[in-house]
């Protein structure tokens, strides 16, 4: 007897939970109201806000979308790849994968994007799922590269390549998020998940974990970035400390060619009000 849609959905609950979360957040953020705008501001990823003590944004941005088309595309992609991947990995590992891929995308945005540039969308996590699918194919094959000889995995690789090219061509798309998510998803599946007789080496796991923790530290405490230094200078009570931090912030802004942005950041009274 064939299963009903509900029975099938119950076997992959996380995928559908994420989808429902997408829709819920969309209902909160899509209306053209002040409240919706505040919700969006509270959840989107801006690297300077992560450095200002709001690290949850490294995950929350993955559930916010910039418009109906954005939501539709990501929802369709999730519905396409999510259930089969969750069935293969199990719900717990799938949840870990989604979170790690979202964080990976966020870290890459934090490392490469302008500190004030906001980013939203679940596509970093979706790229992570595609990376995980590639890793699964690789591990399931008779050799690490055997999967590349099969039609299905090659189509997946083509899809990833096309999306990356689109990300470079279309300015609205944050390819940093895509690439970070892709690498994070593939890495966590290849290095940390145990399948059958596959036992990843402990020294590799430790090294990858160390790199991941280091990158997270750099996103949360970007001590050489002008926005972080400016925020610390504003919070400092000691005038000497304040001057040192402001001087370092100016130096950093000059080095990164973002001096004008820093000056505008300094003069942004609305931002200071929100902080208070």
């Amino acid at each position: 007897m064939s299963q009903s849609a509900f029975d099938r959905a119950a076997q992959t609950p996380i995928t559908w939970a994420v989808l429902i979360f997408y829709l819920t957040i969309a209902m909160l953020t899509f209306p053209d109201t002040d409240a919706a705008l505040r919700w969006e501001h509270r959840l989107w990823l801006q690297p300077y806000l992560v450095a200002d003590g709001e690290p949850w944004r490294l995950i929350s941005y993955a559930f916010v979308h910039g418009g109906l088309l954005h939501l539709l595309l990501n929802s369709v992609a999730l519905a396409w790849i999510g259930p089969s991947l969750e069935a293969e990995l199990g719900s717990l590992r799938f949840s870990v994968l989604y979170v790690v891929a979202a964080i990976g995308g966020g870290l890459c945005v934090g490392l490469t994007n302008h500190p004030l540039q906001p980013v939203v969308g679940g596509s970093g996590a979706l790229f992570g799922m595609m990376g995980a699918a590639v890793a699964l194919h690789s591990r399931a094959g008779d050799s690490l590269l055997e999967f590349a000889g099969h039609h299905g995995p090659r189509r997946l690789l083509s899809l990833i390549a096309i999306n990356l090219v689109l990300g470079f061509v279309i300015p609205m798309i944050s390819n940093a998020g895509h690439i970070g998510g892709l690498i994070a998803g593939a890495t966590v599946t290849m290095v940390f998940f145990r399948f059958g007789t596959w036992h990843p080496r402990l020294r590799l796991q430790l090294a990858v974990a160390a790199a991941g923790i280091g990158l997270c530290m750099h996103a949360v405490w970007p001590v050489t970035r002008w926005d972080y230094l400016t925020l610390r200078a504003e919070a400092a009570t000691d005038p000497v400390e304040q001057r040192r931090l402001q001087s370092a912030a100016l130096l950093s802004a000059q080095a990164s060619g973002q001096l004008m942005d820093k000056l505008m950041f300094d003069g942004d009274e609305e931002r200071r009000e929100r902080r208070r």
Partner: protein
Amino acid sequence: MPTTIARVRAPLRVTWIPAGLAALWLVGAWPLLLLVLHWRDPEAAVHFQAHSELWLARAGWTALLAALLLAVVYPPFVPAIRYSWNRLLARLRAERTPLRQARAELRGFESAPRHLDAGRAALAAHEFEAALAHLQRSLELEPGQVAASYLQGTALLALDRPREAVAPLQRAVELDPAHAFGGAMLLLGRAQMCAGDHARAAEVLTRHSREHGGNRKSHFWLGQCRLKLGDARGARQAFEVAAAAPPPRPRLTAEEAYYRARARTALWTVGGAGPAGGDA
């Protein structure tokens, strides 16, 4: 196949795995380092980051220019990259199923042929320590096997243990001089050469050339042995054979191209003009 796996000093031998792990640890330690610097002096941390990025960029450009220069002035450079790339692909394409199957069969019943199969499969999968264990067990159960001795020597060479590889390869050659189409003899010569016994290595490699025709690799190794023995003329002859111009078809394999290039370079120091013609 074993002759391409067994090598003692691979071209461009960079220990990729430890280097990769070290790079990952560096990525993890870098923010910590910056944090410590920042606590002491925020400006110093910014300076340090900016200078590090600058030096990294400079190092990258310098490495690129050095690579371009090497590609022009040092013939083995490009063939070495091609050879290393091919071996990396071969490693990534190494099949795991035969080893799994061989091990499953061993669980049911242990025998010399099954251990031999497992050893062969482990060698193909680049698991040299495991291969050695299976082959040793196979020889314990049934001494005097040519294939097991040959593969044991191959595994020992791949593990950088040439002195230990001499005995099993010697045994294989004594039992069957033509084993693996002369592969056993070739690897014996190589093992003796790496173990420092150049005289014996030269004898074996000369015999290999006489009985099995030799190839660019064997002639290059023979040239190196003769150089070590002070026979410059003999070395030049061997290098010239290795460096001979390739036929128009088929194209030289990556290994042949590499050894040809090395022989051409060796001729510069030994003396005597190398044959004209580019590397394949």
